[in-house]
């Protein structure tokens, strides 16, 4: 009875939906605030993401005639569900997630479902801009996914197991993997920026070229769900990187785990915001070139180095 209740509690409240919803909103607020302050602006108030979400829920839900009703309604929910299930396996602070051998692969797979749903939303919502946005998100998908997977397989090989909890445990006494494999950490960060479609790689939703890209025709509740799934994906992505590369909640000396984990997460978010401010948006063919000519070989080198030196 108790474990049934605590399971429900951990599913719905602590590392579950409520906590992630809160994390998503705060991360979005911090990101917008940092970008605004670096650009000399004041930035939105703390409740802004919440107000945006509620307003979108209360708006009329319109779709053009050409759009596929059923699919356009299902896609946001699919991507939100995928992201939430991915969050189950990521330990947050002291909470030890239900881990099994190979849950890193499951998490990576679940995190890539929203990108495909994003592409399908573009194709099915009927406007020219969204079709182009959909094409671009698919083109972009392959150029950052391969380096991201390889970068994350580095730590797995080093610590000899494919479960996130093991990888984090390995790092509590050994130096953080980010220090051991700095290249792997850099590639993972770049891959995360591509996965979250943030500034240098926000090509599918390039505001000045194709409006809002695949989400041009979405409004009201569907748009709210899409944006929520994107922000939760940001939170989950950052937690994943903190666990795999920065050693989760451990910092050597005895410190409150949640605080340490939170600070690491905020640092990674700060890096993402800085990259957002500093770089202009790349063109899709430049990104694909960058992905295949630079990132993928680097990731290959990193994995080889890990295999030869790390395990050997």
């Amino acid at each position, binding site marked *: 009875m108790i474990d049934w209740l605590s399971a429900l509690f951990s599913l719905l409240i602590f590392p579950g939906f409520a906590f992630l919803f809160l994390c998503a909103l705060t991360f979005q607020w911090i990101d917008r605030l940092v970008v605004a302050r670096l650009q000399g602006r004041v930035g939105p108030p703390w409740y802004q993401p919440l107000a*945006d979400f509620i307003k979108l829920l209360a708006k009329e839900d*319109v779709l053009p005639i050409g759009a596929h009703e059923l699919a356009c309604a299902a896609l946001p929910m699919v991507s939100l569900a995928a992201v939430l299930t991915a969050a189950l396996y990521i330990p947050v602070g002291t909470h030890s997630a239900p881990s099994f051998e190979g849950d890193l692969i499951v998490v990576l797979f679940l995190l890539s479902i929203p990108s495909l749903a994003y592409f399908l939303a573009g194709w099915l919502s009927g406007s020219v801009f969204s079709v182009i946005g959909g094409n671009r998100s698919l083109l972009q998908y392959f150029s950052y996914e391969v380096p991201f997977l390889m970068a994350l397989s580095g730590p797995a090989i080093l610590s000899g197991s494919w479960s996130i909890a093991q990888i984090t445990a390995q790092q509590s006494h050994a130096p953080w993997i980010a220090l051991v494999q700095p290249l792997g950490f850099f590639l993972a960060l770049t891959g995360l920026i591509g996965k979250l479609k943030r500034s240098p790689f926000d090509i599918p939703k390039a505001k000045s070229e194709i409006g809002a890209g695949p989400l*041009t025709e979405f409004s009201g509740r569907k748009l709210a769900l899409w944006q929520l799934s994107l922000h939760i994906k940001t939170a989950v992505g950052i937690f994943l990187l903190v666990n795999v590369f920065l050693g989760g909640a451990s910092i050597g000396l005895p410190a409150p785990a949640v605080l340490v984990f939170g600070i690491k997460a905020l640092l990674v978010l700060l890096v993402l915001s800085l990259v957002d401010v500093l770089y202009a948006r790349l063109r899709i063919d430049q990104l694909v070139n960058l992905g295949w000519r630079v990132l993928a070989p680097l990731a290959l080198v990193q994995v080889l180095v890990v295999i030869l030196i790390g395990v050997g």
Partner: protein
Amino acid sequence: MLDRLTRRIVRWARRKSPWVLHFNSGGCNGCDIEIVDLLTPRYDVERLGILKEASPRHADVLLCTGPVTRQSRDRLRRIYEQIPAPKWVVAVGSCSCSGGVFHDGYNVLGGIDQVLPVDVYVPGCPCRPEAIINGLIRLLEEIE
């Protein structure tokens, strides 16, 4: 009781995050640069939650500038219909309020209210960014 609470929350949310779409229906671009000025550091409307959106589907408030020329009349009408309810229209500048200095042009229909129901008129040729912000705040206070 619950219904009253949700309505108050929704009203609070609509007041705190009005997303704006800008359409120039044929004026000199004096008011347009003042609208884009709102996003820049000195006036910075993001602190009021106002974002400039790219697609009519995401917008709440339609900021119109310029008198309605005959060619942009249908386009203005279509944009207004594409915006999901609840939606509001703000006429920015004397041209969009009443046709302004071009009122007797052979290609000009007059103000935006010839084509759309307008909620707030912001006079001025070109109107100052502070006047636009004041107009938007007046609109937000009156939102249900």
